[in-house]
Structure formats: structure tokens, C-alpha cells
């Protein structure tokens, strides 16, 4: 069994709900998903109205929309999403155990019932940002069928471990590796950006974000949380196979198929490489992933085009 989730979630743009300008513009950045961060705000009536509006606004560009909630305040915070249309699910900060996820699951079930939604339709996106969460990540990501994706919250992890983040030292190789391996083993999508932008997020240049996101992809992440809209385009690009990669893997598939016809599944390839079953399988998955990214981009482009038309 392989991590062949059909999900394409290369960029999850995190937007503070209280930043009205950011919320207003959230649909324009072509993010695959937008996470509206309540930032501790919850049940004030004004917020209820604005959250429902914000969800609709964020979804205009074809993005999935999450509400970013705190583990222990899900019930109250989700109440402010009453009546909202277009909500994909909740991103839960500091999920640390199966019990945490189960509690959120119960709240979502009630919300779905109250809102007349299909049971199980709302997703849980755990954001692992504590030492306990990293250690228990297997039980966290497997605690609910609602989980399709899990992210690492490195600033949170810095706080949990009393680490002062530093550009030159990467303290989270183990934590990221654990989240990636356990999430993929559960056939779900791990998201994160890696060092240094994970622990030290900043409004970096496209090139800088692209370089870090490329590295994140090469460690197993399939997308990233983007605290700045300037990260979105670079992350979409970094987590999408390039045309060159797709062309290379088409050649690989052809060479392998010809090798098998000749009676061997260990096929020499130009450059001194050797291709066998896992390489061919990787080729198939990259081509498939590329097609899914293309389809997702077309979906967003259509939504954006509709959104730009005068109402």
C-alpha cells in the first residue's frame, strides 16, 4: 500500500480572521486551501457573521476552506461558523492524542447534524505543534476517518520544546520525519515547509520559498502551511511535478516496459541508473500526481474566472 491519496493540497494559506484586508483578498492567491485563523476569537455575534462571510469569500477562488481552531475551544469556536456555506473542515492546533481528535470529531458530528450537513463531511486537519503531539502522531492521524492530511506547526513546537529558533540550526529533523512517515503510513497527506521557514516564518522572496519548499517536497511533504500569501505561488509550483520530470518518467515507464518484454525487470537507464519495479511505480505516481495537480489548477482557474466577473 502506498501514499496515493487523491488529495491535492500544495498550499494552505493561513489568514487571521481579524485581518479584514487579508480575508477580503484571500481568494485571489490561488491557494489550494485557506485556513481562517480565529486567533482565540469565538462567539461574539459580530464574529459569527464575519466568519460565515469570510468562508464564502475565501472559497471564491476555488480553495477549500478550513477554520483554524484551538483544541480545547472547538465547540465554542465552531459555533461561530453556524450557517456558513463552503466549509471544508477545521484545522486543530495542538492536537496531541486520539482523545483530542475524538472530541473534535464529536463536535463536528453535532455541527453537521445542526447544519443539516452530510455526516462525516467535515474534515479534521490536525496541526501538530507540541512534543506530545509529535510523539503520539500515529494515534492522532489515525483517530478519525475525517483526517486526510496533517500539518506540523513548527513555531508551536518551538514553544513546546523551549527552543529559540535559529536560521543556522534545524532542531526538527526528527519531528518532521516522524510526522511524514506516520502520516504517509496512514495514507494521508503530510504538510510542512521545513527549515528555516517552518520555525522562522517570514515574508520571503519567491526564490527563497521555492528553495525551501523544494527541499520540503524532497523530504516527503506534499504541501505547506503558508502564513504569507507570498508563499502560495512558490508552494504550488514546488509541490507540482515539472514538465521535465513528467517527460523523464514517461521515458522511464517506456524503458521499463521494454525491459520486461525482454524478460528483465532490472533495466539499465542512461546516466548509469538502474530502473526496476519501484522506479516504474514512482514514475506512474508522478505522472498521476501531475495530472491531478493540473486538474486542480483548472478547477481553481475556473472558479477565479467566475469570481472576477462582476456580480
Amino acid at each position, binding site marked *: 500500500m502506498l501514499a496515493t491519496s487523491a488529495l491535492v493540497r500544495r498550499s494552505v494559506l493561513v489568514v487571521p480572521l481579524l485581518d479584514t484586508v487579508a480575508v477580503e483578498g484571500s481568494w485571489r492567491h490561488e491557494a489550494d486551501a485557506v485556513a481562517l485563523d480565529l486567533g482565540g476569537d469565538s462567539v461574539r455575534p459580530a464574529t459569527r457573521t464575519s466568519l460565515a462571510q469570510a468562508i464564502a469569500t475565501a472559497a471564491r477562488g476555488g480553495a477549500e476552506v478550513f477554520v483554524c481552531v484551538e483544541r480545547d475551544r472547538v465547540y465554542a469556536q465552531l459555533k461561530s461558523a453556524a450557517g456558513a456555506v463552503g466549509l471544508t473542515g477545521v484545522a486543530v492546533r495542538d492536537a496531541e492524542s486520539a482523545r483530542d481528535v475524538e472530541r473534535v470529531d464529536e463536535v463536528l458530528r453535532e455541527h453537521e447534524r445542526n447544519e443539516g450537513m452530510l455526516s462525516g463531511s467535515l474534515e479534521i486537519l490536525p496541526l501538530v505543534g507540541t512534543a506530545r503531539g509529535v510523539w503520539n502522531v500515529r494515534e492522532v492521524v489515525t483517530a478519525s476517518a475525517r483526517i486526510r492530511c496533517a500539518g506540523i506547526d513548527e513555531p508551536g513546537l518551538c514553544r513546546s520544546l523551549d527552543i529559540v529558533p535559529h536560521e543556522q540550526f534545524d532542531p526538527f529533523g526528527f519531528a518532521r*520525519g516522524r510526522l511524514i512517515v506516520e502520516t504517509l503510513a496512514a495514507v494521508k497527506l503530510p504538510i510542512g515547509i521545513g527549515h528555516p521557514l517552518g520555525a522562522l516564518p517570514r515574508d520571503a522572496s519567491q526564490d527563497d520559498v521555492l528553495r525551501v519548499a523544494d527541499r520540503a517536497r524532497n523530504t516527503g511533504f506534499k504541501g505547506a502551511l503558508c502564513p504569507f500569501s507570498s508563499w502560495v505561488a512558490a508552494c504550488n509550483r514546488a509541490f507540482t511535478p515539472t514538465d521535465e520530470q513528467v517527460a523523464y518518467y514517461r521515458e522511464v515507464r517506456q524503458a521499463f516496459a521494454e525491459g520486461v518484454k525482454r524478460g528483465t525487470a532490472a533495466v539499465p537507464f542512461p546516466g548509469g541508473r538502474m530502473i526496476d519495479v*519501484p522506479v516504474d511505480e514512482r514514475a506512474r505516481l508522478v505522472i498521476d500526481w501531475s495530472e491531478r495537480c493540473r486538474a486542480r489548477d483548472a478547477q481553481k482557474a475556473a472558479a477565479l474566472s467566475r469570481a472576477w466577473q462582476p456580480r
Partner: protein
Amino acid sequence: MDSHRPVHRSGLTMPINNARFVNAAWTRGCDGFTLDLQDSVPQSQKAHARTLVPRAIEIAGQGGGEVQVRINQAYIEADVAAAVWPGLSGLNMGHTLTVAQVRLMDASVSRVERERGLRPGSIEIDVSPDSVLGTTALEDLVNASSRIGSFGGVGGYDYALSLGVEMFTGVDAFFYPRGLGSLIARAHGKAFPLAAQIRDTSGSVSDADHAFRQAEATRKLGGRRGSGLHPNVVEPMNRALTPPPEEVAEAERILTLWQELDERHEAEGVFGTTTVDRYEAARARELLDWAAACAAMDAHKQRAVSRAQARRAAEEC
């Protein structure tokens, strides 16, 4: 062999249905061979490939190296029955995922050992948890069979496939599974192949220079095992994983100094820039032991090849 310490500085994995590779294996100077029934053999050839195993073990073993067979997770019983013959040192099961698979493999091996008069328990099992699922199952797998002596390495195409990452990007995607694997293996008294991470962006399986640098760095880290896919890398791996004479001489001097310190009832002393204490002495002793094992292995292979050549010459006459 004169030493009981296993020496596996170089390994060659080859499709068992490739006669050219198998027939030349014994001339390669390799410490160990893996005859592959698994991914390098197309599905349509699996049954035929099984019939080739006894002869292939005999041919590859003529060079004095150990012979292992890599079996298919999907055909455990059929592959074990085909592979367990005199001359086989162990079996490897790629993509190992469950305790049930290992137990089935163990039971199958025990049965065939009995049927063919092999010493019970003599065939080892190498488990290769070469995927994210394997890593998550490692704690269960580690004690699934008393035949398990070591885990296969992490970091090949199979693991890259399960992570969904490219190989040869210069990024170490296997830091976590390698670290966790080595801790779990050692905590349960099993071996885990320690390998230095040397940047490789070409992916060439025949790059002798890279193989040497990789193996040398591995030796300096304390690793003792190597493996590859192309004959070009065998000699560099053997050379790089054998302690060079200057390191052997230094280890001897450290041990001499340690003996002197011990006689003076002192706990530590200084040799050059090295503080010599009981840990450093133990390290020196291990290095000398390893050097002796390597020399014994080289002599053993030399004798085996001479015998094989003489036999062939006699057959030709």
C-alpha cells in the same frame, strides 16, 4: 574462514534469471551476493526463476562470498522452498510489513531445513522494512523470529517510493527512518547497517569513486557493511571498508599505551591528540579485530577462487 566475525564489506544484488550476471558473480571478489527473485524478476519469469536457485547458489558461492536470496512477500512459501539449499546463508524479504509474514517465512524455512537436512536455525532472515509502513511496524517485526539478525538498510528506491520523494536530490529524506531503525534494532540486540550519507546526485550504480567515498565515510563512522548493484563498486567498497595500514598501526600503538597505563593503574593517557581510556582501547581492539576478519575473508575468497579455477581447468581438460 579463520574468523567467525561476518564480513560483508561489499554486496552485489542481481536478478537470478540473468545468466550473464550470475555466471560471473564468483569472479567479482564480492563478500556477499543477493540473488533476487523479487523486483528485478518480471512476474512472468517468477516460476522459471525459482528453478534456477540451487545452481545459482552454487555458482555464486564459488567465490567465497556469502549467498543470500531475496524473496517475494507475495510468494513466501514457494520462494522459501525454492531458495533454501546448502550454500545459502540467509534470506531477505523486501517490503516486509507484518509479523505474520515473518512468522510464515520462519516456519517455511524450518520445514525446508528439516526436509533437506540442513542444520536447524542455520538460515538467517534479513528483514527489510523498506517503506514507511515498514518503519511503523518495526517494533513488532524486530522479535518476530529468532532468525532475524539484522534489518536491511533504509534509503533505496522502495523507501523513496513510499515517501513519494525523488532519489539523488542531495536531500537526506531518510534521516528519521534510519535513526529510528537503528535505535529499535540495537535496543533489541539486532544489527542495523550504518551508512554514511554522501551526497549523490547522479544515481549511477557503477560510479566507483562515489562508492569508495561512501564506503570510506561509512567505515569512519563505524559502519562495516556495503552493498551495490554493479561489479565496478565491489573493489572500492572492499578497499574502503578495510582499515588502512596506518589506522591498524595507530590502533596497535593505542592498545600498547593502554596496556602500559593499565600496568601503572592509570585510567587514561594521551596519544597524539587522542585521549586513551578504556573506551578508546575498546575501539582500537575492535578495529584490529575487524582488520583481522577482513584479512581472513580476503584469504578465504582467494582460496575459494583458486579452487574454482582449478576445478574449471580440470573440467576443461
